[in-house]
């Protein structure tokens, strides 16, 4: 008797795009607020951005239930860290924790495509980009999600990241001012919304700098 196959998938793609850009003394993390399934929009007002620590914010797109579970897991681990070390986790520390957490489920992955953004211990902007099973690197900027194929080449063109092969190693953070970086991010999402059906509705931008964290919103195409 041949084995019956399951006719449901434990995964779904709820779409959306995320971007993060690191500057000399700031970090911009942005994501759209659309949640979809198949060709339907489930809701137009869903935040993909989660504050993990004082100076560390994560934006994730992919399968929303896995993203939520991952955010909960990291928030819980951060609380434990605070109890044990009496301080906030730094962004590079959280970056390693996220990588380990993702790899832990290497054989039943979190279908979550993440960008981590924040300030390191010296107050410089840092961005880490991940795949679904935890492979990560520190970069000057990155995008993930359904619109990333549209967004990434444009960011490459505008932010001209230095080759990682250069010696001495050159800094990947952009020399752009905070306002210019935010403007770039807005442009990038407006463009992605034109062609990616899963990106749109509203853009949520989180900016981290020495003064703290602030949030901005911008309307995007609703079609």
């Amino acid at each position, binding site marked *: 008797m041949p084995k019956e*196959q399951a006719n*449901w*998938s*434990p995964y779904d793609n709820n779409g959306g795009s995320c971007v993060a850009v690191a500057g000399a003394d700031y970090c911009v993390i942005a994501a759209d607020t659309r949640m979809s*399934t198949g060709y*339907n929009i489930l809701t137009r007002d869903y935040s993909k951005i989660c504050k993990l620590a004082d100076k560390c914010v994560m934006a994730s797109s992919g399968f*929303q239930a896995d993203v939520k579970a991952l955010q909960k897991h990291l928030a819980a681990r951060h609380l434990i860290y605070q109890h044990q070390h009496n301080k906030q986790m730094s962004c590079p520390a959280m970056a390693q924790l996220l990588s380990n957490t993702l790899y832990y489920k290497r*054989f039943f992955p979190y279908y979550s495509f993440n960008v981590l953004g924040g300030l390191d211990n010296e107050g410089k902007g840092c961005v880490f980009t991940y795949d679904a099973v935890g492979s990560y690197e520190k970069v000057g900027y990155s995008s993930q999600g359904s619109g990333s194929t549209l967004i990434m080449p444009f960011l490459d063109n505008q932010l001209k990241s230095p080759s990682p092969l250069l010696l001495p190693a050159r800094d990947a953070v952009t020399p752009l001012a905070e306002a210019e970086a935010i403007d770039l991010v807005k442009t990038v999402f407006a463009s992605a919304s034109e062609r990616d059906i899963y990106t749109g509705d509203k853009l949520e931008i989180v900016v981290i700098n020495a003064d703290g964290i602030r949030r901005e919103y911008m309307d995007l195409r609703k079609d």
Partner: protein
Amino acid sequence: MNFMASKQPENSLLSPESDSQRTLYPYVTGTSVVALKYKDGILMAADMGGSYGSTLRYKSVERMKPIGKHSLLGASGEISDFQEILRYLDELILYDNMWDDGNSLGPKEVHNYLTRVMYNRRNKFNPLWNSLVLGGLKNGQKYLGTVSMIGVNFEDNHVATGFGNHLARPILRQEWHENLSFEDGVRLLEKCMRVLLYRDRSAVNKLQIAKITEDGVTISQPYSLKTYWEFSAFENPAQGAIGSW
């Protein structure tokens, strides 16, 4: 992107010896639930049908139930799994009451609990085959959320399950606004349910509308919607077509 192909190899670490322990497909199912926020709270509608595949087997299934003091749960999908969820929630509310501390679980908390239950079952590859709608209010704060069988959850001003997503949500996006009156809310829900009745083959013309306000839950007696079948296109349908029957 097909991250996890649904076909598992024979020697997969993820499939246990006896697959008969896992849910593969639903048997008795309920169709759409539609809900919206209105001025005084939440309005939710669901018909009373329990289908057994393509047979409309049961026609008095209550698919909406009050939970605790502040919430209302509506479910579509496998009815037996819905009954199991009601047993879980019964225990949850019981323990909450036994604390006897003046505190009670609000809709946000119940929704979070349900999300965790659904997600954990999905992780074990044995899902509760339901799409749930959880609405309520506590201390004047209205809440309306939904969870699917794989744990996808969100809250919004109006939600629907199954066919309701395709047929009711567009109507709600067009016509919902803040501070709907009770009559307007019911009218809007009935409009959605009527479209579902015409176009969803698993819908039955026997529905209930439930409301939850600060004063508690009221679930209406079952009633039917008026339908119109006198469109000229339905008269003498074979008129323009040559055929033997």
